């Protein structure tokens, strides 16, 4: 008696069917593309990357162009180029929008939007999204902007600031170097630099805003500089310059042999280990330093290396404590 034959849908077809059904249930409306009237679209007023030219100026370019400054002229040239290509091949990548009130607000594609106005288009291709939460919106704009060559450090800073604020709001913890790295997918070094930028003091930020500092690496060097006086000198020097500073090479030329480091006092050498131990213990009894006592336990009193290190550590703490006492002008 022959065995009864059984039949089944082929494995790949079965997987295909299952996966297709699956992908629909999770992504309804995710690829919602359409043609939209330009006047239904508006730029995001909170986009960290502010175009130097506004929609109104583009609409009546002949009237406004005479009053344009250098940045605006540069931006306008770029828009004109984009508009030429749009006239030839149309807008290839849809502008991403979400519904906000009666209009649709741009998530990404503000330049395409302005160039479309410049080209005299009535409608543009859009991808309609759900309104993203603040964090995702800033994140998208950051990703959109991060790779642009023409983005200034000031714009990057604002970008970073808003993404960090949004992150803090969502995750309830402040952003860290590590989370920044994971979030944006950059190297540890780059993340450290951005983190320095985020923590830069007011003076550095002011220089960045003024366009005198535009180099992330340089900012990192300045922020991480320990020598306060030298830092102050360098910042003053940069402030006095008329153009952007890209490296400190010129600073040395200008500053010549002038000392940039704080003058220091040599505390001399000591040969008697017992005396050194006495001095260290004595200093640790001081009210300023007594709280650090536990950091100096288990010291090998017979090793000159360990002893020297301990003194170095202690002097650093002492300096810091003394600095705290003095009023610091910011």
């Amino acid at each position, binding site marked *: 008696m022959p065995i009864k*034959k059984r039949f089944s*849908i*082929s494995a790949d*077809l*079965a997987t295909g069917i299952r996966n*297709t*059904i699956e992908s*629909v249930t999770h992504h309804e409306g995710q690829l*919602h593309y359409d043609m939209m009237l330009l006047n239904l679209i508006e730029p995001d007023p909170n986009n960290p990357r502010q175009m130097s030219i506004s929609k109104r100026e583009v609409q009546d370019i002949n009237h406004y162009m005479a009053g344009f400054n250098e940045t605006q002229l540069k931006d306008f040239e770029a828009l004109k180029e984009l508009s030429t290509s749009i006239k030839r091949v149309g807008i290839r990548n849809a502008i991403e929008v979400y519904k906000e009130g009666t209009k649709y607000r741009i998530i990404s594609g503000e330049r395409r939007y302005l160039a479309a106005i410049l080209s005299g288009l009535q409608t543009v291709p859009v991808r309609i999204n759900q309104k993203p939460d603040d964090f995702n919106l800033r994140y998208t704009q950051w990703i959109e902007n991060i790779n642009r060559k023409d983005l200034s450090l000031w714009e990057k800073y604002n970008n970073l600031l808003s993404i960090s604020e949004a992150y803090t709001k969502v995750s309830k913890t402040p952003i860290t170097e590590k989370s920044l790295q994971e979030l944006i997918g950059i190297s540890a070094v780059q993340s450290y630099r951005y983190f320095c930028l985020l923590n830069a003091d007011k003076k550095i930020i002011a220089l960045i805003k003024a366009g005198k500092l535009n180099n992330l690496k340089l900012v990192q060097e300045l922020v991480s500089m320990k020598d306060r006086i030298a830092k102050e000198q360098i910042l003053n020097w940069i402030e006095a310059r008329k153009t952007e500073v890209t490296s400190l090479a010129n600073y040395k030329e200008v500053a010549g042999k002038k000392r940039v480091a704080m003058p220091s006092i040599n505390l001399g050498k000591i040969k008697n280990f017992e005396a050194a131990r006495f001095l260290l213990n004595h200093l640790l009894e001081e009210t300023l330093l007594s709280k650090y006592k536990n950091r100096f336990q288990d010291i090998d009193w017979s090793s000159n290396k360990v002893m020297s290190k301990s003194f170095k550590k202690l002097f650093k703490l002492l300096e810091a404590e003394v600095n705290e006492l003095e009023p610091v002008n910011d």
Partner: protein
Amino acid sequence: MRIIAAANNKGGVGKTTVSRILAEYFSTVKKERVLALDMDPQANFSNRYIKMESDPYQKDVRIPPLHPNYDPQSQEDADWDGRSSIAGIFFGELVFPYPTYIDTLEVAPSHSSKLLLAEAVTREEVVQKVYDQLSRFLGLEDVRSSYDKIIIDTPPSKGPITISVIRAATDLIIPSIMEPQPIEGIYGMIHLWKNETLRRSQHAPLNLIGVLPNSFVSRGIVHNDHLNDLKVQMKDYVLDSIIRRRLIYAEADANDAVPPSIFMYPDSNPAKQEIIQACQEIEERMNKYAD
């Protein structure tokens, strides 16, 4: 207004049968105003309700007959050749649905050569126009206010015309025989459904009503096995009802069949019972989705 499309890119799986059953169910049993729309160049769906004509000068071509309201003497019809098909929407022509033997059922027939022409377009910008044309037509206020249901029969392909139907539809039914090749056709259709669902706004979804097993042989192991398998892979999307393989469907399809519709058979007829059950299940599934 709901727009129901029966689609499967494999031929001979029951698209026209299901379209017929639904058109007759909603118009005769539910007394709703129905428009039967035939997008298949083979024109079988149209031929059920109006006598399609052959054009002796072209091979394999079926064209709609002269419209009953056409008056060659009238000034009003001076610019019209008296024939109207749904293919007209691709050529800027007006569409005049034809009345049928059922009061509340009208048909916008196929036109083989015109539909084949629309199906064959390749230029990107023209293709895009074809995609959106049916949806535009069915969006017209005139159309929306005239019908409760639109039933669309589609060609056995995944070409521009099928896509235009998918874009216009609110509900999709995939008739299929439970055999390997037609099941591949199901895969092709749910792909189109996926693309369309991702593309559309969430507020106007394309509801996948499901696969309707057709021409089913209960004793056939291959049919049972494939049906069971399919229910595992897409459980929410396979209808419980089945339409069995019966000669009566072919008989009702014959020219001058009496009675012309299975719904006119006695209630004791098993074919009538099974199609009513299938239609009711489809209706219930449609009602689950908001209008």
